[in-house]
């Protein structure tokens, strides 16, 4: 048991340290005595530990050899689905490599725990700061150096140097300019606007103005145009502009709708087509004739951060984004009914052409996809009116 009186005397003696020295109610009993392990005192146990460690290394070596054997034994390629879809090769290689490594780890730690010296040793700490003397020397050296450089006495040199160095930041920024093209008005237009445009071509040596057909709505993936009569009430179709599948009809080149161009167009032009009871639709101002017999078309790109929206609630005509659960009401101009999206889904005005195919009256009347700084909300409302 502690003798508390002694302790308090100790405290009184060291009280000059004030806050810095914690007042110990109990004196430090010091490091407990070292105790020998069974492997230190019993040669049999020591030998056994030695064999254990060597055996573990041996097991590791066996696993490594099995790894090499597995590498050359198991074919991959066509056998990718064997064993839980992982393939026999992956499973065998992983298991043998894993065990080979684990055995080494266990062996080394067993060696350290049972056979290596286990005396705890004490090392003294030193304050992180350098000794006062070193600090003074360094400061003096610094002072001499600055003095010899005469930077303090020559503000002209100092300031011109700082100016020159600062200006070097400019090339670092300017060099980044060619990372990409400027946004321009690219975010405000989609390829739907390519339908119905007037272009000038040369026919029989004469320059004529031709009107490109209005953009048909085509089924995603297969690209067939959609007749208004194809859709039953309740049908939902993922759609794309027909130009992506048939560019020549819209006087565009194949290269305009391939590779990176195709991805860019799809990221803005993707469409959800839905047929509902015409009576269910609550058309927005100026949108009275944007549907065709209850068929409405909305941008598939969420106005939150741009995920494609894919989950449809059939009874309510609510469309849910699987990324962040923004929910839009397709009976009511794509209004946000739930979730983080700040704007309604842009609607594409529809009509039918002479052959009864669904076509877009025009491009979207507002930018599709995520919001951005320059996006001018006032212009949207204006666009709704025209």
């Amino acid at each position, binding site marked *: *048991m*502690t003798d508390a*009186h002694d302790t*308090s005397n100790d405290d009184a003696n060291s009280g000059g340290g004030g806050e810095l020295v914690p*007042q110990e*109610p*109990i004196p430090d*009993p*010091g490091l*407990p005595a*070292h105790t*020998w392990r069974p*492997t*230190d005192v019993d*040669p049999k146990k*020591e030998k056994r530990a030695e064999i254990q460690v060597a055996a573990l290394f041996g097991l590791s070596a066996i696993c490594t050899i099995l790894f090499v054997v597995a*590498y050359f034994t198991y074919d*991959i*390629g066509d056998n*990718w689905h064997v064993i839980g879809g992982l393939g026999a090769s*992956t499973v065998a*290689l*992983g*298991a043998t*490599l*894993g065990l080979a490594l*684990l*055995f*080494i*780890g*266990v062996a080394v730690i067993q*060696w*350290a725990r049972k056979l290596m010296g286990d005396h*705890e*040793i*004490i*090392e003294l*700490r030193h*304050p*992180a700061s350098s000794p006062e003397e070193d600090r003074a020397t360094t400061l003096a050296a610094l002072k001499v150096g600055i003095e010899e450089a005469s930077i303090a006495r020559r503000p002209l040199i100092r300031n011109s140097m700082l100016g020159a160095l600062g200006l070097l930041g400019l090339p670092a920024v300017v060099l980044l300019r060619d990372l*990409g*093209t400027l*946004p321009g008005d690219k975010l405000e237009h989609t390829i739907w606007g390519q339908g119905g445009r007037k272009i000038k071509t040369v026919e029989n040596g004469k320059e004529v103005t031709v009107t490109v057909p209005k953009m048909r709505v085509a089924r*995603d993936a297969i690209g067939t145009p959609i007749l208004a009569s194809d859709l039953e009430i309740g049908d939902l179709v993922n759609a794309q502009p027909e130009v992506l599948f048939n560019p020549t009809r819209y006087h565009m080149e194949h290269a305009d709708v391939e590779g990176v161009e195709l*991805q*860019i167009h799809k990221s803005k032009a993707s469409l959800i087509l839905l047929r509902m009871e015409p009576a269910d639709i609550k058309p927005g101002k100026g949108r009275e004739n944007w549907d065709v017999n209850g068929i409405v078309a909305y941008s598939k790109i969420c106005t*939150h*951060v*741009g*995920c*494609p929206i894919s989950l449809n609630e059939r009874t309510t005509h609510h469309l849910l984004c699987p*990324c962040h*659960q923004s929910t839009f009401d397709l009976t009511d101009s794509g209004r946000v009914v739930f979730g*983080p999206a*700040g704007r309604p889904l842009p609607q594409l005005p529809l009509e039918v052409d002479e052959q009864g195919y669904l076509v877009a009256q025009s491009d979207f009347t507002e930018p599709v996809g*995520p*919001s*951005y*700084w320059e*996006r001018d909300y006032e212009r949207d409302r204006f666009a709704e009116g025209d």
Partner: protein
Amino acid sequence: MMKSADVATTNGTEPATPTRSAKAAGAVATWADERLGLGTAMKKQLRKVFPDHWSFMLGEIALWSFVILLLTGVFLTLFFDPSMTEVQYNGSYDPLRGVHMSRAMASTLEISFDVRGGLLMRQMHHWAAMIFIAAMMIHLLRVYLTGAFRKPRELNWIIGCLLLLLGTIEGFTGYSLPDDLLSGTGVRAADGFMKASPVVGTYMSFFLFGGEFPGDQIIPRLYAAHILLIPGLLLALITAHMLLLVYHKHTQWPGPGRTEENVVGYPLLPVYMAKAGGFFFIVFGMTALLGGLFTLNPVWKYGPYDPSKVTAGSQPDWYMGWPDGLLRIIPPWETHIWGVTLSWNIMLPILIAPPLMLMVLIALPFLEQWITGDKREHHLLQRPRNAPTRTAVMAALITFYGLSWAAGGNDIIAIKMHLSINQITYFLRGAVIIGPIIAFMITRRWCISLQRHDQEKLLHGYETGVIVRSPDGGYAEKHLPISETKAYTLTARDREEVYTANGTADEAGVAAPGGKVAEVAKKIRSKLSALMFADNVQKPTAEELHEAQHHADHELHELEHQIATGPNKHGPTDDDH
């Protein structure tokens, strides 16, 4: 304790005669020393002391998984082609044969299905990345909750926070590389985040993607960042982190013989080197088993990225879950003013919350230091209960993190538990604010009650479980004093003092400069100091301890007497312990 004669003979008393290999090694060492001066450099380092505790291993997991990431990553670069050129896939995986995709996706499939060990390396790489970030987070919790971030280790705390940030970005750039449908959806969201940035947003997006989203530049650029830029920074910061660890020497738990002035433990050579090295193989081996036996990120099931497609239940890697959760539960706040759009629904959860969280983390040591005014070096760790407010702050942060993370799985929770996603979302909107406050209060009181329990044990001994009935029918439990070692360990901590703002003069009696601002700062500081310390239990003084023990001895004697004279003579006595 055994006498040294009992020590196994192989431990040896005779010096071993140098073998030929030892002589050769000596020659090599001499050769190297004559050129590198290793003798001086290694003089102190070879037997450098590292204290032992299981919680000191958590940072090691992060370190070793980073090494595994480098090793497996190098293998993957040999086969991966970070190009967005469109190709038709013709490899072994038949469900996707004939499908158009980028070279990046096609080469990822090639690594998975046509390179032996390729899928193993890919999955080990991804598993190691998950473990890397998880281990960093748990290591951060350990360092914070034990007070290991205090002077002189604040800079290492900042480096650690930056490592966590860089590790997260490294993870995001990495899992985006295969250009599959899931990661492409993540990149699409990242494009939305950039576009939401005020003024420069669209320019950032167009410059990063090399034009309009998705462009054909993002994968090669992410690749450059993933294999060169960020790993370089990580490596530099990890090196600095390790060097500072060596310079400061590791913290240790208080206990007999362990003080602020020393470090007690095993020497680097051989024990610590063996334990740490062996642990590397264990982490490596576990990662290999995970990579070989547990699929993650099966990009072949998702297919190539197509901006018009998405899979239900799309989620980022787990460490991105919490900002994604905030993004889900934020109300649809957008401001349209002067012809521009401010998307608070993106800025708050993504552009503001995570950087703010990082800044809060970085600021924690300095905030605590300002409130306590403690400028001393600390090398002895504190138990979480002995810093109740600190522990409660972390509990609040963890609660915020956890609830935000849960929000990132609100769709999964709704489906699995048959709940309404709307109700989950509305609940979490409130919970992310109220939850941390409740967690703070509960944790703080919990810690204080644990402190009281410790004090109780110290002053009145531990509960033996022996109930004694006195002749007049009362019951009392017999308490016995705890061991000296335990008692010392419990009291090996500082006394805390609540800072009080005494007029305009500080502790040294000098009038505070700065006038009103300093005045207000002092008031805040004294309020925070009271909140931080006022209810804490301070260790007893020697007098208090002596008196309590005297009292306890007296009570014990009474009980002993009652046992000896009373009806139940079979209770244990002092001799049993």
